[in-house]
């Protein structure tokens, strides 16, 4: 027994002293450390005639140049590949100018978060233009386009500095950077810079940021009628989001795309939060140019809808259009109509807009979105237009024309997502005054489908 105890003691002694460490210290967080690297070059100078490295794009669209001197630039990261709208690129701004840096690697946002200062040793790198946009990268490929800096060379060329630096954002007027009619030029002062433009709205609010299979350009129109393009990659994680309706500010990297001698200004937004369209009207006074009517039913989350100028017509309050906030896909208030549990048969409910004046309207369009639930058949939901309706009257007294729109498909159980109607062309009513109505018809009281309506917008292009 003594022997066993001795052994046990010996065992525990050995076990103890030969313990192998299990936990590792976290490495230091170097995010706020800024190396003191001397900077001897600016982006603006790099591309200037004085340095003579590279001719201007106008003189030589395919010019690239190798940098053989020990130049170092330093800038703040203003955009990266976090959302996927940029791919193998980051954009930096050194307060003289901005530049797109091509890097042959994924997940750059982990190393180069927006707001980080970085230092770039330029010797051995290349500068050039892509469709007029200044870029920094690596050896040109066979088509003379710059390649990305190889991932295996990154640490030689790009030194990381502190994070959370203030971003150089340029508040610009749409007139400075946009165009009217057909674009012919862009403003080179803002190439590769982070700009913010106020009082903007999307035209195609029935659409998503990008089509599923290709990068997509969407027009963004200012209250005073200037257009810039929002260019979005189909790989961006917000590509399938619906374009927001309403008005507000848009922030993004200002870029250019030359096609021949014709330049198109393109805004590359970094994330959908770069689009803050929260206002119903332009700043200052008066309705937004081009917007004839908007309604997102944000006034309340319950109760019967009662909006100035609108007609909410139904045989009883219970089957009129009501405010709803069922959470779900839209997660914001909307209009809802149903005969479910009303104990009424032959329900015939209408929600009619105020009069909309299409005088002088070019390309007038209607968009809205719908969702529906509990398919039973026998329920009808339609969008109609009338030119001889009187506000507040029984809709049955007027003539109505049905409009063709994409409507939600109610599932057998639960609700569908909200889907866009598509652009509904109202140009055949141009020059007239119209009313638009959503009509819900249900023969039986129970069961009945429930329909939801949201984000109504009537626009014109002038």
């Amino acid at each position: 027994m003594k022997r066993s105890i001795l052994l046990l003691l010996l065992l525990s002694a050995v076990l103890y002293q030969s313990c192998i460490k299990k936990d590792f210290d976290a490495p230091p967080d170097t995010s706020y450390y800024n190396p003191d690297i001397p900077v001897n070059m600016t982006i603006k100078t790099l591309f200037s005639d004085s340095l003579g490295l590279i001719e201007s794009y106008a003189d030589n669209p395919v010019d690239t140049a190798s940098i053989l001197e020990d130049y170092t630039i330093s800038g703040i990261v203003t955009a990266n590949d976090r959302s996927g709208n940029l791919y193998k690129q980051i954009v930096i701004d050194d307060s003289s100018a901005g530049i797109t840096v091509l890097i042959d690697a994924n997940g750059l946002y982990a190393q180069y978060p927006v707001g980080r200062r970085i230092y770039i040793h330029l010797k051995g790198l290349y500068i050039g233009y892509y469709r007029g946009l200044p870029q920094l990268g690596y050896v040109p490929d066979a088509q003379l386009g710059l390649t990305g800096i190889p991932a295996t060379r990154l640490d030689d060329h790009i030194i990381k500095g502190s994070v959370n630096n203030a971003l150089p954002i340029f508040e610009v007027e749409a007139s400075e950077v946009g165009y009217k009619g057909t674009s012919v030029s862009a403003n080179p002062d803002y190439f590769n810079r982070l700009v913010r433009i106020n009082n903007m709205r999307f035209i195609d609010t029935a659409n998503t940021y990008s089509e599923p299979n290709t990068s997509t350009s969407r027009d963004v129109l200012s209250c005073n009628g200037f257009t810039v393009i929002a260019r979005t990659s189909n790989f961006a994680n917000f590509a399938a989001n619906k374009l927001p309706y309403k008005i507000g500010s848009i922030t993004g990297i200002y870029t250019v795309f030359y096609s021949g001698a014709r330049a198109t200004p393109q805004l590359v937004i970094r994330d959908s939060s770069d689009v803050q369209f929260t206002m119903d009207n332009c700043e200052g006074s008066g309705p937004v140019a081009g917007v004839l009517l908007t309604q997102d039913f944000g006034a309340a989350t319950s109760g019967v809808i009662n909006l100035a100028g609108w007609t909410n017509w139904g045989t009883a309050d219970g089957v009129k259009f009501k405010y709803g906030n069922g959470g779900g896909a839209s997660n914001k208030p909307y209009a809802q109509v149903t005969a479910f549990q009303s104990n009424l048969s032959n329900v015939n409910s209408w929600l009619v807009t105020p009069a909309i004046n299409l005088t002088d309207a070019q390309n007038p369009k209607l968009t809205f979105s719908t969702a529906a639930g509990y398919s039973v058949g026998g329920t009808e939901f339609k969008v109609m237009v009338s030119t001889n309706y009187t506000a507040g009257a029984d809709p049955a007294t007027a003539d109505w024309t049905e409009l063709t729109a994409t409507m939600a498909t109610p599932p057998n159980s639960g609700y569908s997502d909200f889907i866009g109607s598509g652009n509904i062309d109202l140009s055949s009513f141009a020059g007239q005054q119209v009313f638009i109505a959503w009509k819900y018809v249900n023969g039986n009281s129970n069961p009945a489908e429930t329909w939801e309506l949201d984000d109504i917008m009537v626009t014109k292009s002038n």
Partner: protein
Amino acid sequence: MYLCTRFEKKYTPYHNIMILKLRWSLLLLILSALSVQAQDKGQALVKGRLLNTATNEIANEVLVAIPAQKRLVTTDGVGEFIFSQVPYGSYQLVIGGGMMRSDTMRIDINSEVVDLGVLNVSPNDAATSAQSVDIPTIALEDNNVNTDDEGVSTQNVSGLLTASNDPFLRTAAFVFGPYRFQPRGYDRNSQEIQINGAPMNDVETGDAYWNQWGGLNDVFRARSNTYGLQPSDYAFGGLNGTVNFDADAASQRKQTRITYSLTNRQYRNRLMLTHSTGLMKNGWAFSLSGSKRWSEEGYVDGTFYDGYSFYAAASKVINGKHGLHLTAFGAPTRRGNSGPVIKEVYDLAGTNFYNPYWGYQNGEKRNSRVRNSFQPAFIFNYEYTPTQRTRWNTAFTYQFGKDKRSRIDYYNGANPAPDYYRYLPSWMNEIYNFDPLLAQQESANIQNAWRTNPSVSQVNWDGLYNANYNNIETLRNINGNPNDSFTGRRSIYILSDDVDDIKKYVVNSTLQHAAGEHATFYTGASLILQRTESYREASDLLGGDYFINSNQFAEREYPGNVTTGQQDLNTPNRLIQTGDRYYYNYISRFNKALWWGQAVLTYNKFDLFGAVSFGFNSFTREGLFRSGLYENSSYGESPRQNFSIYALKGGITYKVSGRHYLFVNGSINQDAPTFDNTFVSPRTRNQTVTKPTEQKSSTLEAGYLLHAPRVNGRLVGYVTDIKDAAEIKRFYSDDSRFESFVNYALTGVNSRFTGIEFALDVKLSSAFNLIGVAAVGQAFYTNRPTVGIYRDNDTNITPVSREVYLKNYYMSVGPQSAYSLGLNYRSKKFWYANLNANYFDRNYIEAAPDRRTELASFGIERNSPQWHQVFDQEKLPSAFTLDLYFGKSFMLSQYSKLFPRSAFLYVNIGVNNLLNNTEIRTGGFEQLRYDYNRPNAFPSKYFYGLGRNYFVNVSLKF
């Protein structure tokens, strides 16, 4: 020759544990003899005399036992021994122990007096403890199954062989074993492993995980082997036979043992302490054992080992008929792994022992692939021996615990693996194909970085932490609650554990009855219930605050869809913190029941046996996550998958004479497919392959055995056909139809295993033996299996069906030709030395199915160089090695009177690969990912065998 090994309970010195048990039985026996008992007809007197061959002197005080009868005697002053009243029958006689080498022989008792004459014994080469116990066990522990990124089982060494005195099996175990030799090419799961009669094979894979009792060598020494189709006393057996460990307390000899081992393999140091009481007069026996195996770094860079083992057992024997045994053991072990890479990477690293899994963190080596397992087992046995002819053993087992395998996981980040193909010179050639000079320059830059910068050539932990530090993001709508959000550092990279948490209940009962002098009957039944919870959990957020439970591949596949990317719709947008489960989470439940029966008949000229087993195996999957991709097939319990299993085998041995034996055995069987090969993607859904089918096999083995005084040998031929096997491979498919991860379900796979095993052990003199062993086989596919390709990140669950042209490709089962020539020297002065020269050849790498399809051959001219490049199977270079073993035992009482007579010191030294050949590729596989346009884009990966490696073992026993 099954009769020689059938009762192969080796009473080698470390096995004579049993003998103590027997000593006590003997006492009982004498007592019972005193009571009135009629002299049975059919009982015999057995006698003989022992001679020490080393000294030509009589051998006194040597133990002689008939284990089946639990009878034990010691030779007297003139070396004689006598057993009386031995019932007629066929028995194993075990001679030796202590200073004498133990030997086992079969005796047939069929007359009243059996005089065995003079039997030779030789001094004990105690050192076989190093060879026969330690080395194979280490090989087994080293070769735990691992799954690589590409879904290939990277370590497929069979763990089947254990020590045996058969020259073929011994050589296959510790000479061929380290070079990935697999006996006959069979799977790991083809050997049935029991501990105290409790089945230990995993119910899910059929494999036995020897690491569960790793480091307990002292108490897991007594074992009985059968090989091939030979009948076993314990179970029906697999194609590769059975191993049963006698690891109860009563089976441990009375001793205290301290062992220290020094090695340069997986671990550096091992310390083992064991104390056993043996069976005491009061009928109790207790045994305790503990060990620690450790190293800061093993043979391969960045690996470490931190293993403890515990064992505690108690036995109570009541009036010789009832034995109650409680045995508990476990081996909590953490170890850092290494992994295979492609040749380009080995060249870049400048060593064949490059390990991509580690990197420096704050200047210390940290391994990202750590295996951490602790699955202790508790076995309760009731052993009932009503008569000497009948033995009934029932084992109840409870086993539980976790097996964790860590890895770096990441969401929307750059691949952190240093050997990722886009970080290599070959990729530079690809992207700079327009400028060869530039490609060369970039390659040189990478080569230079690999030589000088470990943050390039290894995992860059500091970089991963800093990526996480900088990534401030807001997680919204947490758990589906619109008002709940969290802003913090969203980890891009984390360390995660793939966890299997098991609870297993087993009842196994075996009845053995010797009916008369010729026949022994066996029957047994077992019931296995196992519940395994499998999930991935976040184990280290690497400096971040949270991780997200999203499938980035599904998000990419369905942009804008907020549900498909969710891994668990029941708690969408979950904030994952350390210890939280994510990605997958499911329970598998197994019910398996089996009955078997066996008859063994022994006659003068013929031995016959026949055995049958049947039962069922069934399992279900219960998903605990509702995946966004498979909303309706991921959550909840799947339909039960039922499979019937059966097996039949039989054989006959013709004894030409006492020296020459001819035998032929055959078997057929049907077994259930495994869980992982039934469910298309168990991690994500309940979907099964189109028609899960039982696998069938048939085997024939025949041979000649020679047992002459100076020559022992065997020549055995075998053939096994396996039909309807299933295998699912999981990898990224570059097929333009998928371009995503796929589950590549091969079904109806047929294969053949055939070959010859040869061994010859010639006694050159009393000190020298020459042993030649050869194993030459062929394991190959015999048909073109069908594959069903199931997308893994797509709601479309209909498979695409193709034919895979695998016929006549070799299976990757280690060297299919292995030869060894050994010279053994045994000194009279209790030391020995063995030198083995070995040669391995015909080791084929695993053929990837996707490059054996019609699609892969598109546009390639038949028999053109390109054709051969794509379709030929690579044979690894042959290898030559030398191994040296040395051992000596010291009887300490000869050196000092302070020591009792039972005190021994054993020293064993083994050096493998004496010539330090570091170029031995022991295995490899074609990467499953295959680019049809660039056949060499994803080259094969290889494993290398260790260079010169040693094992020094010092053991003190008293």
